[in-house]
Structure formats: C-alpha cells, structure tokens
C-alpha cells in the first residue's frame, strides 16, 4: 500500500529554498488565501458528478476486523529523530500532537520510550511478584490481577521528564511533535497498587517501593510508600482495551503526575524496602544538573505546562480570517484551572476556553478562536493549575536552573507565525 498521503506535511527545506531565506515573508505572502472561499465561478464537480464512493458498494463488515484510521490519515504517525539516540531499542519517538484533538491520545499514537526494546510477553507467562518488607511475599498471575476487587478507570497524562529537553539552550526542533511530543494521556483500567500491597501486608519499616520491569532493561525506580498507597495503579487496560505491547502489555505501573520513567512497563516485581535504591535511572539519569554543578534528585512531579499544537511548525496557517488556535495543558500537581494565550509575544494575554473535562493529573484542551489578518504573530500559552502554579517562561526557568539539567523543561513555548502562514520555533525576549 504505497498510496501517498493526501496532505503530506510541507517539506520545510524545499519550501525555504524556494522562498529564499531573507525577506521571505513579503515575497510569499500572497500564497495565503484570504478568509472565505469566495464566490464559486464554475460548478464544483465533486457536487455535480456522482463519485465512486457514491455509486459503488464499499467494504463489508469484517473487511477490517480491527479497524485502523482512514487511508487519508497515513501521515498521522509517531516519528523519531534518529540522530538523537544510538539505537532504536534504546530510544524514543514522539506523539503527533499537532494532528490530535480533545484530551485522549489514541493508543497507537502514544509516544514510545524503551531502554531495551519492546518486550513481547504472553500474559499466561507473566508473573508479578511482591517481596521485601512484607508479611507475605506473593506471586500473582494476570488471572489473579483480573479477579482483584476494586477495579477502577482513570485518565492520566504521562510525560517523559526529558520532554522539551532539547530546548534548554534555545529553540531547536521545528514542530510540537518533537518539542513536546513525549506525552500521552489515556484512560487506564486497573487496580490500586494499594490493594496488592495490602494483600502482601507492608511492614511498618517499609518506606519505599521499587517497581521492576520484565524487559531486557529490567527498569527499576524508587517510589515513596505514601505515593504508592495514595494513587498508583497497576494497569492492564488503556483506552478500553488491553495495554499495547509498547506501553507495557500485559501490565504496567501508573504513577499519576510523576515523570514517565517511573511508570514501569511490563511490571514483574515490586519490592518493599526501608531506603531508596538509587538505581541508574535516578542517579545517572533523571537527576537535574544545575549551573553550580550540583544536582537535584527525586524531582518526580511534572510541573504545569502547556503548548499550542495548532498553529505550530508542522501545522501552518493556510487562510486569513477565522482560525482555531488550540493546544493542551497539564499539571502533575493537580487540575488545570486556566490557560492564557498571547498572540503578540507576551504583551497582552487572553484567557482561552477549556473544553472537555479538566481532571486532576490529566490533560486539558484549550481553544482560542481568532481572526488572522495576515500579520506576523508570536504565539504563546501559559498554564495555571489549581495549586496556583503558573507555567514560567524559559528565561525564568534558566535563572534558577541554568541550561544543563536536560529534564523538567516546562517553560513557555513561542511559535512565530510569519506573514506567509509558516510557523517557526523561536525564542523571544
């Protein structure tokens, strides 16, 4: 099936070459059509002629026993940046945020991060062990987990701590898929981790847990027992069906609001201990190196953040007149309460409209319907959560943290919309 996608994303380099780098704005401004479609001179054959899909029978039921998106949506895929990592088994790809709407990420588009490739596990062969400082070390099968009382459903965002990590020193990647795409937001089905820990009986000396994965990286992290007991889930479902292999099938840990690396996939063991383990992923990685050479550790919470997904470099403006600006916001400290948007680089802000539920530790969706008169815009969004935290500017973040921390960059993103409608990732003062 080599059909070309109908609306292939613009080839930016070719476009820039054709336009000439300097003064491109004025030269190509005329490519942006004005507002309304205008008067139709000749009848539209799409209306006056009977189309194939209008005349002939289409596929019957069961032609697509597991449905997939329209052939015209083939460009909507996860993408990676090959030069970022040395091997695809230890790598990351990115959610195409600019092609999505609402707050739920479709399972097949949720970004992937693996440290040893995707483990393919027969659920009949999967075991989950709880050991360490417990009264009774236990082994569960998937059948056991699915018989556990108290199953619940929750929507939570999962953001990699390294999301936007490339952008600390300045604008780098042209596209919100690449600058902000290490995030997804799905409905989980599972049981509270507390249920399993109570079944094993955590001793009073048990202060930390260490989830471990069954994949070839045997991922481990240390999590305080309070968080484990408060809202962590052992999840086997996402978006109403089984977890996808790349998201930890048959079972993963859900650690709401906290950095994605802790949400151990292919979860096979939970050890209870009295101290943290200082695993590689909480020492060598996922610690925040500050300007003075010292490092913050255990920076688990993902602070409030937002990004405008349309317009953005992969989704330029095509027409003057009415346009829909939209984006997403989230906070690891609570629910998103408000998102403000500026079109003039932060001089004046307008509170955007939130649509759909704004649930704690889940993505929120915002809109600003606006009229574009063809002028250059500098678009930013600023999220606020219900603890009163306001998403900082990149400058404010750097003042505290320097530029070497890699992780936890939740600074305000700027998109420059040029007069030709093309959008660039820029930094402004």
């Amino acid at each position, binding site marked *: 099936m080599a059909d070309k996608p109908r609306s292939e994303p613009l080839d*930016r380099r070719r476009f820039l070459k054709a336009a000439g780098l300097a003064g491109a704005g004025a030269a190509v401004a005329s490519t942006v059509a004005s507002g309304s479609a205008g008067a139709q001179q000749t009848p539209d054959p799409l209306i006056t002629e009977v189309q194939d899909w209008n005349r002939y029978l289409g596929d019957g039921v069961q032609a697509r026993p597991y449905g997939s998106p329209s052939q015209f949506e083939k460009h909507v895929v996860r993408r990676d940046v090959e030069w970022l990592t040395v091997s695809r088994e230890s790598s990351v790809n990115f959610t195409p945020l600019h092609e999505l709407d609402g707050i739920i990420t479709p399972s097949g588009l949720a970004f992937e991060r693996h440290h040893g490739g995707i483990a393919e596990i027969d659920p009949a062969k999967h075991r989950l062990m709880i050991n360490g400082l417990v009264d009774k070390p236990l082994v569960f099968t998937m059948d056991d987990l699915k018989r556990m009382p108290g199953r619940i459903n929750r929507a939570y965002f999962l953001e990699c701590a390294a999301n936007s990590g490339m952008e600390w020193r300045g604008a780098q990647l042209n596209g919100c898929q690449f600058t902000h795409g290490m995030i997804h937001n799905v409905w989980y089905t599972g049981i509270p981790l507390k249920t399993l820990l109570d079944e094993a009986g955590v001793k009073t000396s048990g202060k930390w847990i260490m989830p471990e994965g069954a994949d070839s990286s045997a991922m481990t992290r240390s999590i305080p027992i309070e968080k484990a007991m408060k809202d962590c889930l052992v999840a086997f479902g996402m978006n109403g069906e089984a977890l996808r292999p790349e998201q930890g099938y048959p079972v993963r840990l859900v650690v709401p609001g906290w950095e994605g690396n802790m949400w151990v996939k292919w979860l096979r063991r939970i050890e209870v201990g009295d101290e943290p383990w200082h695993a*590689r992923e909480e*020492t060598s990685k996922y610690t925040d190196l500050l300007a003075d050479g010292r490092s913050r550790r255990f920076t688990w919470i993902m602070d409030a953040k937002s990004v405008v997904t349309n317009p953005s470099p992969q989704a330029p403006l095509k027409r003057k007149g009415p346009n829909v600006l939209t984006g997403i916001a989230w906070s690891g400290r609570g629910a998103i309460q408000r998102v403000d948007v500026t079109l003039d680089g932060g001089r004046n802000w307008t509170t955007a409209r939130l649509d759909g539920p704004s649930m704690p530790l889940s993505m929120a969706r915002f809109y600003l319907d606006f009229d574009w008169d063809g002028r250059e815009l500098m678009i930013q969004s600023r999220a606020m959560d219900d603890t009163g935290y306001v998403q900082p500017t990149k400058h404010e973040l750097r003042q505290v943290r320097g530029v070497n921390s890699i992780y936890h960059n939740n600074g305000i993103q700027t998109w420059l919309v040029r007069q030709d409608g093309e959008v660039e990732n820029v930094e402004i003062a």
Partner: protein
Amino acid sequence: MSRLRNGLLFVALLAFALPAGAQTKKTGLGRAALAEEIAAWDIDVRPDGAGLPVGRGSVKQGEEIYLERCAACHGEFGEGAGRYPVLAGGAGTLNKENPDKTIGSFWPYASTVFDYVRRAMPFGNAQSLTPDETYALTAYMLNMNDLVKEDFELSKENFAQVQLPNAANFYDDDRETTEKAFWKANPCMKDCKPEAPRILGRARALDVTPDNKSGPRVE
C-alpha cells in the same frame, strides 16, 4: 477562585482519591512466593551494599571481560564508540558548558554500577554475567575513572569502602522553596512588556529539525 468561571466540568478532587486509610480486606488471591523464586528475581543492590551477592573480581580480570563484551559499544577506555554512553572521564566538567556525566564524574554510588550492569548489560544479552564477572567489571570501570588502583580487587566485603567523588552533590527536590516565585497570584494580562518582543533565536537557524523522511515508514 470561581471554578465555574471557565465553564469547566470540574470533577471533584475527592472523587479521584483512592479509598484511603484502613487496609482493604484480604482477597486471598495470589500465592506465596518461594525463596528460590525471590532469589532469582531479587537482584537489586543498594548503596549500603544490601543485595550484593557473594563474590569478587579484580581490575585485571575486569579489563579482559570488558574488552570482550563491552568495548565494542563503550570504547576501549570507556570513551564511548559512536554515540554509545561514555563511561569514564569528565571530572571537573559538571559546572561547565558541556558537562560530561560519567560514572567517575557524576554517579553518586558504585552500587548503581553493579546493580545496572548486572540487570541490563551487555545490551542485548542482559543478565548473562556471573557475580564474579560483575565485580570484576565494576572494579575495572572504577579503575578507568582513576578511582581505584590497577591491583584492586572488589568484593562483597570491601564494596562499601568505595566512595564516588560526586556523592555529596545531590540533594532532594526543593522546587517548592527555590521556585516559589512560580506560584504567582495574578499573572500580568495587559501591557506586560514595555517594548515589542525581540527574536533571540530560531530553530531553523540551527537546522536540526528532522526530515519528514526520518519518520517511520507507513505500510
């Protein structure tokens, strides 16, 4: 703080908290884990040495194993082949423009080296090293970083004596105090900047945007 102001559908926070407090009734699901099963999976090691297996290995032995099973990716001297992780060097770079974070310059604990190599290396053939081999490799990587001498032998007994130089430079998350300013009561809405904003940098000038071609092919 009118929660309805934005027309939000606010789901009460409480509805999302899990049934807290008292222990839930036991279900009797699951079965007792056997000692052999726990021993097979419980391979983690902590900074205080908890979890270390019985065993020992020298820098010399480690060098041999390393050259055979690790150097192809990590380089003969831990310098990293291609873009594989660098394992040695970088001392004194942590507060510089391009910090080099290695076992010697950055990692706080030697136990992390042992634990990680034991569970995840060599890449693609994990958990294939014996405890003695893991001690030897850990000793060799410490030696590569000038932290132990060439005639050093690492064992369960002397493990806790190994201190890494950067251990004291980690501290717990303090964002709620050092970044208190980010909890702003009323962020500015009108005339927030005296001058028109200036562009400081553009992504396209750095030309690191991936081609559309580099995305996965869609069948």
